[in-house]
């Protein structure tokens, strides 16, 4: 089922609090879904924002929310039985390839859209997950696939950046004449995704990243989420290397709610309010 018109009111069926910053809201409702797609979550009287679907089974779906702004703090405070509006799913989602030679690179809550993708990829994938600290690692016990961790403070896995691990693995595969990656999937802070993209370009490897912009309609008419000449809600949110090469706004510019184009840092500061 899709709910791409007026919001459909659904009760929160269950809430999982992963840690003080992340919670997942589950809804007992079938929804058509391809990994990487998102829904618009309406809290009546408050606001409506895009969230990726992070859990999906034929009978239910879940969205994982990081409490960092006014809306998201309200969203993680919702309780089972509370009514919210859902529109979607919207967007294109990831192009899933069957090769075992793929890498998935998650940064912070960028794990959320990648999780249903990981569950559909070949389990021999190379899987990296970075976060500020061990406490911020989402879904620590969710996957069969082995995960390589990096944290800013070294509290879990290697201290440093996800790209350190990715670059080492790429070099390792080249030196040992192992098959290189056929695809790298990434989601996280845009500066991280840009670093992954740049690394992939250097090694001639295709990648797909999932972008975030302020959204209104979700279906490609209002223009609030444009990134260069791409409309993130309908052309994306997942973009390929070939598209990213032509998107000068990637890791550089985003629009505020007013439509004003600002440096990405200023946008990120505003979005975290």
């Amino acid at each position: 089922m899709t709910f791409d018109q007026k919001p459909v009111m659904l009760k929160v069926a269950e809430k999982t609090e992963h840690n003080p910053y992340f919670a997942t809201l589950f809804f007992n409702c079938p929804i058509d879904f391809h990994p990487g797609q998102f829904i618009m979550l309406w809290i009546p009287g408050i606001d409506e924002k895009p969230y990726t679907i992070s859990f999906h089974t034929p009978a239910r779906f879940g969205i994982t929310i990081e409490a960092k702004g006014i809306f998201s703090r309200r969203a993680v405070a919702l309780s089972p039985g509370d009514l919210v509006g859902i529109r979607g799913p919207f967007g294109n989602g990831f192009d899933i390839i069957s090769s075992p030679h793929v890498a998935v690179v998650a940064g912070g809550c960028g794990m959320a859209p990648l999780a249903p993708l990981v569950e559909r990829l070949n389990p021999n994938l190379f899987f990296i997950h970075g976060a500020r600290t061990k406490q911020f690692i989402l879904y620590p016990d969710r996957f069969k696939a082995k995960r390589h961790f990096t944290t800013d403070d070294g509290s879990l896995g290697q201290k440093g950046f996800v790209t350190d691990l990715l670059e080492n693995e790429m070099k390792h595969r080249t030196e040992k004449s192992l098959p290189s990656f056929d695809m790298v999937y990434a989601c996280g802070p845009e500066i991280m995704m840009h670093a992954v993209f740049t690394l992939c370009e250097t090694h001639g490897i295709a990648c797909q990243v999932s972008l975030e912009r302020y959204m209104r309609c979700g279906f490609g008419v209002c223009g609030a989420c444009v990134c260069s000449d791409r409309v993130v809600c309908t052309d994306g949110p997942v973009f390929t290397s070939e598209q990213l090469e032509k998107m000068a706004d990637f890791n550089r510019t985003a629009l505020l709610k007013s439509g004003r184009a600002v440096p990405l840092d200023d946008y990120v500061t505003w979005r975290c309010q």
Partner: protein
Amino acid sequence: MISFLGKKLQNPLVLASGILGNSADILARVHDAGCGLVTMKSIGPAPRDGHKNPTVIDMGGGMINAVGLPTPGYAHMDAEWQALANRKFPLNASIYGGSVEEFVRVARFVSDQGPDFIEINISCPNSDCHGMLFGVDEKSAFAVTSAVKKAIDVPLIAKLTPAAPDIGRIAKACEDAGADAICAINTAGPGMVIDIEAKMPVLAFKKGGLSGPMIKPIAVRCVYDIFAAVSIPVIGLGGITTGEDAVEMFMAGATLAGMGSAVRYRGIQVFDQVNQELNTWLAEHHTTRDAIIGTAHGSARADMGDRAGTTPFAAREDQKGTP
């Protein structure tokens, strides 16, 4: 290529204001997708965020929206103006203000940036203190149109609301005030959608303008009335999603046909598609767009004047004051 107020357009299709027109890049893409004239999102006098979400909801046969005129403000768009200065496509700059003075201030600045046309949005229902106030009253419409006309160096288009009690009279007031063309219609209503489970209006602004196929008969009627009331060209829009819809709008009296909500239903490629459908229809009926403009008015139709908009803008200026 066709000529409109002295400017060359690749075809008679127009991107409605408020749809996608947020940046030079996306405007260029819409042009490349087959749109003859792209319109910027309405530019206001000061930064404005617009309303909280939900702001845009699809209803199947059309949409309801209250985005609320978000704008960086004309003075905070330097990079945009720079990018647009090097554009390779005709540009319509939509503007709004909360008073005649604000309209003039924005218009004067925007005119200096060199758009091909300036469209005054005197018809937006989604703000309590902007837009529509000017479009429902002949005197206000005349005042703002004539003041802006004096302040700018490019052709002026007045965008009207179907909420006007007599849209033909508003259009005539704009023509008398010096408008070079009329654009109609802005969204209809405003309307309201209440979610019965949430027990409240879905839009954060509660009410919003209706667009898309559900309002096409209103748009066609408005364009028909305007055509009968004025002799300047009309950009007809409201619910057009196919080539046959565009034909209907031309027959009502439109010179150009605009689309907005159609992007929801057929994507950005809708411009190429509608253009092909239009040309197919015209070829099958052994006719041209020029020949069908206003034909629904039958023998009662007014003198054609310059409905096709082929007279150069400079020449039009010379004709000012002549009946």
